[in-house]
């Protein structure tokens, strides 16, 4: 029973605090599952990789997997519902009080004020997904593998930002899988 309560509270907390959504949520998942000893980073990043071919928000991929790993199908349901509750409640309240909310300068100061912090969360997410698993496997940053990884991530960024050829997300992910096989 206490496992279910733990799952519920942890995912409720993540749902409530994760400003910025999307990839900015990764550091929260990582911190919690490592500190509770629920899932290893090596296993979690596999799920992130698989999630690339699954539709929908990857936060739900994360909660479903971690919940399942900890307490089976009931755990998966509890974690996912808990994760969605803050979004749900906030969205309902906002829909009711949108006009007052939009005009309130304190609300605006907070929502705008938290945005620079999201940049830190995203950079941290880039490290957790791209380099940290390799570091945990080799215990060094000074390796050829690490250099290849950094070059590949940066090259990928430039591919996404060039204007000549339009690259869809699926094509991009498939290409990175092939490059990974050839490069590592």
């Amino acid at each position: 029973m206490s496992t279910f309560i733990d799952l519920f509270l942890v995912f409720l907390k993540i749902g409530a605090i994760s400003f910025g959504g999307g990839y900015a949520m990764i550091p929260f998942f990582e911190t919690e599952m490592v500190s509770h000893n629920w899932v290893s980073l090596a296993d979690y990043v596999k799920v992130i990789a698989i999630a690339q071919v699954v539709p929908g928000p990857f936060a739900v991929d994360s909660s479903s997997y971690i919940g399942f790993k900890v307490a089976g199908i009931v755990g998966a349901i509890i974690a996912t519902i808990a994760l969605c509750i803050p979004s749900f409640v906030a969205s309902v309240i906002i829909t009711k009080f949108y006009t007052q909310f939009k005009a309130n300068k304190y609300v605006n100061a907070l929502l705008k004020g938290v945005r620079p912090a999201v940049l830190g969360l995203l950079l941290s997410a880039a490290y957790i997904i791209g380099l940290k698993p390799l570091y945990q496997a080799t215990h060094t940053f000074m390796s050829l593998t690490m250099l290849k990884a950094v070059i590949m991530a940066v090259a990928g960024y430039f591919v996404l930002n060039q204007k000549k050829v339009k690259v869809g997300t699926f094509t991009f992910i498939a290409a990175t899988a092939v490059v990974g096989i050839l490069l590592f």
Partner: protein
Amino acid sequence: MGIYLEMFITFFKIGCLAFGGGYAVIAILQKEVVELKQWVTNDELTDIMAISQTLPGIIFVNSATMIGYRKKGLLGATVATITSCLPTFLLILLLTFVIWGFTDNPIVHKAFIGILLGVTALILNSVKKTWKTAVKHYSDVILALLSAALMLFTNINVVLVLLLLAALGFAKNIYFLKKEEKQHVNVH
């Protein structure tokens, strides 16, 4: 009952099609709930997407909840939220179950490293996009660098870092707001 079944089917479909996040999802919502079902207008959807991104939590869930709520109140919001997440929930558990045995295979392992570096590139790309909306003043650069430094180079809990940065950002914005109001008064 008919409308709830209709919502169930539509949001389940949206959940099945919601690849890529962000603008890709807007396009799907536009087609399904604006054009086909006419549950919200295009202007309302634009508003909904803008608010979804400022609220904490999952952007996709925020927008599904708001659309469901506008159409059919609390129950509508509940149906929209649960059914839009259901495909992801089922597919990730199924796929993980099927693929897991292969992940120790050296080739699959290498492909996964490649995909994760691709995801890293996607994250760097969203750093660029977020930078445009988050940094409006040099003080925002300082906050962004501070947040990155604390998250990457210290062991301070990520929740604490976020709360600290949110407090700093809030205080800074209020300070500038008050200063602006004062100048405004002086001019008049």
